[in-house]
Every structure is written in structure tokens, then in C-alpha cells.
């Protein structure tokens, strides 16, 4: 149905274009015809030509009546003959014939030529002939004028008709042009609507993708609760169960050991809660970094110290101080996060290096471990919320550590990136705006 509509619309458009062009061609043709017919030709001046003939007849009459020399009579005679000859010429003769005025005119001419004064014609007879001719011409003069005006009026009528036709064609072209414009505007509107629909569909697709990502996040969150909350709770439950078992009361050593296990489980739960709370605050935009110049070496040293990790972590400072523009609390949080990861995901006997360096205008701190590293897939999704490496599902962790660390780095105008370490392991690189020593 829609396709049929489009077909008819296209056909209508084509037809309108043809009509419009056709009408314009008609108008142009008529205008050209008008232009050609507008020319005035000397033939149309018959009233004047006929009047001249009359004048010459009268002049000859006067010359014959007066004392004028025979030379003047000859000249006047020649001129009258020439005027009669002119009337006999093609266009003039046709005009007179069509008007019914030609009849008899050449008889007058032949009579005149028979009385040629140059050949000794009878002057008295010539005089009588010319007088009679004058009267005959006078009678025809008004008819010539009337005929002339009639011809002119007919010509004007024809011009007027052509003119009206051209005008009608132009008005027709205007109307079809307007219809054409309406069709084109309608077409444009349809195209625009299609474009808007497409954009809306794209937005819907994006919204849908976001919803999917969100539900994936919830799924991962449920996963997290299942593993990271249940495990410590199970540990505590088991310890309590051992302590309250009937008969065979626990020794003080056992009580101490179970208390240690339980406290550690609680500490894990607290850490998890802290991380989730901080992440929520960052998401809300409630964390405002307090930026100032700080020695990145010192922040790293403090973070290492706080971990109580013994000799496994080594700070390898360069020979120049590395000054970063950062918030020391947030930076420390990031580094301890990275260090916890490194400790967790690399074997106990391997070393972890921390290298603060100044690279151009950026202050950087690399945390390099010698663990199993990450696969390319893991690297691409490492910063997604609640994303845990499939191989480490059972190790403690929230899946929020890396995303939170990156958020905190970006809050300070820096970034956090991961790349594989040559020879195995992972390098986590924190970069922060540096202060270039001047």
C-alpha cells in the first residue's frame, strides 16, 4: 500500500514537471510569436502612401493650371506616375485588392501614360484626366484609412490573443509549479519523519543496551553476594558451631583460633562494605578530590607500609622526586587497591614492584606483579562493575576495586590502565597530572 502510494507520488511529480515545462514552452513560443509580429513595416503605412499619391495628383493639377514651366509639369507628372507605380507594387497592390480598392486604379495610370506631356500629350485632356483622378483618389482615401485601421486592429487582436494564451500558460505553469513545490515539501517532510524515526529507533536500541548492561550488573552483584558475603558468614557460622558443640568443651587455643578466623571474616565483610559505599558515593558524585602537590613516592611508601605485606612489595624510586597534583587520600586508596590485587592474584613467593616515575607532564606509578596476568578478554572487561575473572571467582573481592580505582584516578584528572608485563604478570599504571620541576 505504502509502496503503491510512493509510486503514485513519483508519477504525479513527473507529470507535474512535464506539465510545468510544457506550459512554459507554450508561453515562450507565444512570446516569441508576439515579438516577431510586433515589428512595424512600411507597407502598413498605406494611408501615407495613398495620401502622397493624392498630393502628387493635386500638385500636377496645380502645375497644369498655373504658369509654371513645363519642366515642373514634367517632374510632377513623373512623380504622380511613380506613386501610381508604387501602388502597383506587390505589397501595396495586395492591400488595395484585399480592400476592394484596386479596381480601376491601373486604368487611371494607363490613361495618364497615354497623355505623357514629354511626348507631346494633350495638356487640356491631361488636366481633365488628373482632375478626375484627384476626385477618384479622394473617395478611396478614407476607405484606405479604414482598411488600414482594420488591418491594424486585427493584428492587435491576434497579438492580444497570443498574449492571453502566453499569460494563461504562465499562470498554469505557476499553479503546477506550486503543486510541485507542495509535493516536494511533503516528500521532504516524509524523509524528515523517516530520519526522526530512525534516530528514535537508535536511541531505543541504546537504551535497551544500557538496560541489558544494568541487568548484567545486577546479575554480577547477586553473584558477588553469593560468594563474597556468604563465604565469610559461613566461616563465622562454622567457628561458632565448633565453639558451642556439646561435650568436649574447646580449649583456650581453639577459642583463640576460631576468634581470629571470625574476625578476619568480619574484616573482609567490612572492607567489602567500605568499597561498595565509596563506589556509591563516587557514582553519586559526592566525592570531591582535594587536589594539591604531593610526593607520589611518599604516598606509595605509606600505602605499602599500611598493607603489612612484609618484604614482598618493593618501592623502586627513581633518582628524581615525582610530584603529582592529587588528593593523597584517594591516591592512597587507589594504590592499596592495586597492591591488594597484586598480592591476591600472584603466587606468595613472587615479588611486587612499585615504580613512581615522571613521564612528560604526567606523574605515574606502576604496580607490577608476576602473577598469571590477564587474558585479552579479561583486560577489556576489567573495569566493568562487579566483573570478576572467571578463574578467581572463589578468591575474596568485590569486583568493584578496579572500576572504583579508575573512577578515583579520573576524578583527579588522571587515569588507570592495565597491560601485560613482559615475562608474565600484570602492570597496573596509575597516571596523574604531574608537576614539572622548573
Amino acid at each position, binding site marked *: 500500500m505504502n509502496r503503491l502510494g510512493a509510486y503514485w507520488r513519483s508519477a504525479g511529480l513527473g507529470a507535474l514537471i512535464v506539465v510545468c515545462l510544457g506550459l512554459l514552452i507554450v508561453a515562450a513560443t507565444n512570446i516569441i510569436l508576439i515579438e516577431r509580429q510586433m515589428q512595424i513595416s512600411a*507597407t502598413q503605412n498605406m494611408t501615407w502612401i495613398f495620401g502622397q499619391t493624392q498630393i*502628387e495628383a493635386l500638385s500636377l493639377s496645380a502645375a497644369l493650371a498655373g504658369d509654371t514651366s513645363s519642366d515642373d509639369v514634367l517632374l510632377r507628372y513623373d*512623380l504622380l506616375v511613380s506613386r501610381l507605380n508604387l501602388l502597383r*507594387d*506587390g505589397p*501595396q497592390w495586395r492591400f488595395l485588392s484585399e480592400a476592394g480598392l484596386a479596381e480601376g486604379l491601373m486604368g487611371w495610370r494607363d490613361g495618364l501614360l497615354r497623355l505623357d506631356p514629354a511626348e507631346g500629350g494633350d495638356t487640356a485632356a491631361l488636366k481633365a484626366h488628373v482632375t478626375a483622378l484627384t476626385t477618384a483618389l479622394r473617395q478611396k482615401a478614407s476607405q484606405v484609412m479604414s482598411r488600414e485601421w482594420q488591418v491594424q486592429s486585427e493584428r492587435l487582436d491576434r497579438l492580444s490573443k497570443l498574449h492571453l494564451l502566453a499569460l494563461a500558460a504562465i499562470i498554469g505553469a505557476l499553479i503546477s509549479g506550486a503543486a510541485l513545490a507542495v509535493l516536494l515539501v511533503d516528500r521532504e517532510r516524509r524523509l524528515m519523519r523517516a530520519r526522526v524515526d530512525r534516530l528514535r529507533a537508535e536511541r531505543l536500541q541504546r537504551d535497551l543496551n544500557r538496560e541489558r548492561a544494568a541487568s548484567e550488573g545486577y546479575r554480577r552483584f547477586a553473584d558477588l553476594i553469593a560468594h563474597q558475603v556468604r563465604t565469610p558468614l559461613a566461616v563465622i557460622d562454622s567457628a561458632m558451631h565448633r565453639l558451642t558443640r556439646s561435650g568436649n568443651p574447646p580449649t583456650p587455643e581453639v577459642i583463640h583460633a576460631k576468634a581470629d578466623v571470625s574476625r578476619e571474616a568480619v574484616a573482609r565483610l567490612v572492607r567489602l562494605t567500605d568499597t561498595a559505599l565509596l563506589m556509591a558515593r563516587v557514582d553519586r558524585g559526592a566525592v570531591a578530590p582535594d587536589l594539591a602537590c604531593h610526593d607520589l613516592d611518599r604516598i606509595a611508601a605509606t600505602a605499602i607500609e599500611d598493607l603489612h605485606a612484609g618484604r614482598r612489595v618493593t618501592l623502586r624510586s627513581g633518582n628524581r622526586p615525582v610530584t603529582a597534583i592529587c588528593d593523597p587520600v584517594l591516591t592512597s586508596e587507589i594504590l592499596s587497591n592495586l597492591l591488594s590485587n597484586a598480592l591476591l592474584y600472584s603466587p606468595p613467593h613472587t615479588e611486587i614492584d612499585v615504580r613512581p616515575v615522571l613521564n612528560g607532564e604526567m606523574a605515574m606509578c606502576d604496580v607490577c606483579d608476576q602473577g598469571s596476568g590477564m587474558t585479552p578478554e579479561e583486560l577489556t572487561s576489567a573495569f566493568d562493575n562487579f566483573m570478576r575473572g572467571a578463574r578467581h571467582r572463589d578468591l575474596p573481592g568485590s569486583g568493584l576495586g578496579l572500576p572504583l580505582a579508575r573512577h578515583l584516578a579520573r576524578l583527579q584528572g588522571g587515569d588507570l590502565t592495565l597491560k601485560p608485563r613482559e615475562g608474565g604478570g600484570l602492570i597496573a599504571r596509575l597516571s596523574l597530572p604531574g608537576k614539572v620541576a622548573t
Partner: protein
Amino acid sequence: MTAMNRLLFGTVMLAVSASGAAAEEVLLTLTGAVTGGQVELTQADLDALEWHEIATSTTVTDGQPVFRGVLMRDILDHAQASGDTVTARALNDYVIDIPMVDFHEFDVIAALYMDGIALTPRDKGPVWIVYPRDDHSVLADIRYDMRWVWQLRALHVQ
């Protein structure tokens, strides 16, 4: 060809002479800004100039007659005419001003023959100013048609 024309011309001249016109009769009189204020041209004077032919339609005849005569600018040069306007006067005292540029822009001739027959005062002669109407579309216009003076007898240059 020229010799042929001269021969033909001579024959026609004899005919004209026989009808009363003498070879020494003044055909055209130029006045105003010309040599000595007045130059009279006879048939013989015109005969001494180069002749030209134009085949053109006219407003008062049918077909495309062939006109033969002398270029108007040659006549004016012959009389050393200098000015912007030439006032042409015919036997019946028809008077019209013709801009001098016409004669330089177009090959306007003072025709003495139409279709090989000498023009006489009883027709449109002895001299008819003829424009090459069919060679230039701009000439097919009443403003130029009015300048086709027949029975021309005098030119006044100013």
C-alpha cells in the same frame, strides 16, 4: 566582369539618354560639410566610383531584387564629407536625417539599377538609398525602413 558591367551600363545609359536624360545631367547634389560647400555628381562621376550589388527584400516590393549602385560612404568620401548626419532630400521634398554611422556600419548603397533595369523618376529613381536589409536583422525595422529614400536628389552633410 567590370568591363561587362560597364558595357551593360553604357547600353542602359544610351537608353536613358534616348528618354531625355543627359549623361552630364546632375543626379545628386551634396551640400554642407563637403568640398567647397557644394558638390554636384553626374552619372559620369558615379560611374568613376566602384560599383556594388545587394540582393535584398524591401518593404514595398515582392521578392529579393538585386540592386546595383555605389556605396554611400564612397560618395561621401568622394565629396570629402565630414559630419554626423546626412539629411537626404527626395524629388517630392521627402526629407529625413540619416546618421553618418549607418554608412560605415552597413554597406548602404545609392542604387541606380534594380534587377538590371535603370531606376527612373517614374519609378523610384534615379537614385534609391538601399540598406542590406537581409544581411542584418537589426535593419528589418521601421526606423531603418524610413531611411530608404527613393527619388533621392540631394544630400546635406552636417
